[in-house]
């Protein structure tokens, strides 16, 4: 029988090497796989390229990974937020590189990687500085920019429930980029709030089919970034 269950977050992230490209699910605090990120901080891989919509908040989760000087480059759409302090600090000191990608283009580039599409055209950024240096082309009288797929070595994902085959469901808007990142990474590592038996997720309701998932760890009472920040917590 196929069983993708991994006993701990520590083991789940153990093989992520220095220099890896890592997608991290979540939109702000919602869907952020805090326990996996903290395990990656403990593990210590350096020089990572991280792909996430944002750059973390406070001094926990993704922000703490940046604060621990493990990230050399962020690919994101919105690196500023009300409680984002560590990324701006590192960025202004020239310690971290930023690749700014519009949110829809970021989502579509990740999906393209998962779907085997090396490039596609979009009107987003046409006429702006973000289109500079990009190939442009007209279709049906409108100008479009060519965008390339965006792949990763690993994806760190949080979900509501998973079965041993890696079928996943999410909770509300915590879904966001996660199903796309599962498709686009060579190795997808998932922390699940509940591990259910095989067949425990209705085949009609599966959001991420198990083919896109490599490792599943149960984290039954995950902490939430917003709660940690409200409590003034730091990691490590």
């Amino acid at each position, binding site marked *: 029988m196929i069983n993708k269950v991994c006993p701990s977050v520590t083991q789940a992230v153990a093989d992520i090497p220095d220099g890896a490209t890592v997608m991290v699910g979540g*939109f702000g605090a*919602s869907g952020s796989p805090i326990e996996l990120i903290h395990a990656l901080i403990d593990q210590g891989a350096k020089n990572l390229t991280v792909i996430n919509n944002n750059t973390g908040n406070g001094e926990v989760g993704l922000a703490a990974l940046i604060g621990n000087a493990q990230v050399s480059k962020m690919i994101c759409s*919105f690196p*500023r937020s009300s409680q984002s302090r560590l990324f701006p600090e590192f*960025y202004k000191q020239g310690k971290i590189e930023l690749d700014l990608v519009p949110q829809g283009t970021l989502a*579509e580039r990740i999906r393209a990687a998962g779907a085997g599409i090396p490039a596609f055209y979009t*009107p987003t950024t046409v006429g*702006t500085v973000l289109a500079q240096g990009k190939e442009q082309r007209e279709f049906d009288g409108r100008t479009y920019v060519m965008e390339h797929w965006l792949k990763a070595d690993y994806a760190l994902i949080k979900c509501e429930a998973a079965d041993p085959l890696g079928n996943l469901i999410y909770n509300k808007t915590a879904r966001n980029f996660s199903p796309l990142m599962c498709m686009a990474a060579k190795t997808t590592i998932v922390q699940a709030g509940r591990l259910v038996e095989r067949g425990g997720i209705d085949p009609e309701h599966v959001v991420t089919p198990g083919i896109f998932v490599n490792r599943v760890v149960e984290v039954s009472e995950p902490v939430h970034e*917003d709660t940690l920040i409200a409590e003034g917590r730091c990691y490590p």
Partner: protein
Amino acid sequence: MTTGWTREQIAARTAQDIPNGSYVNLGIGIPELVAKFVPEGREFIYHTENGLLGMGLPPSEDERDLDLMNAGKKYVTAVPGAAYFHHADSFSMIRGGHLDVCVLGTMQVAANGDIANWSTGVPGAIPAVGGAMDLVQGVKQIFVVTQHTTKTGEPKLVERCSYPLTGAGVVSRVYTNLAVIDITPDGFQLVDLAPGVSFDEVKNKTGTSVLPPADNG
């Protein structure tokens, strides 16, 4: 002396122009207030980029779910008939032209429909674009709501934007504290004046010419 519309009145005036049954995305700030002023007999369905169609009001403490937020990262609720989906589906709604109206705040809007609302272009500032460039290219109608001038009195309605663009030639209509103004092939054109505001005042506070209302007679 206060003249013109309050933030709430700008939002209410904007809501008047949104047809019943519209799928609407509201930006942060005054745009959010539009949801408070849906005209009698109409219903709008709100989309939030982070994967929800059918966004409802902010939750009470009891009903708050930390995983249910909007694109501004504020907690929200979902109305009956809502749907959750991932980011590629969400932006397919935007970029595929399925949303009817997007209401956005701005730093500048130009007579040719250009909008600049994501960056001042100041060197060293951290750029952040989010979904703004997707929204302005994809949604069928882009409404801009804004104060007519900056806090220091400079016009926000200009001949050409000096800040980096979010999108070129994409805005349909502008709602300010002074007036409602269309973007036409000939530039800004007055639609409505706020109470107590004269066309001359609007013209004086606009960085380029404003045409008088179209003669609909």
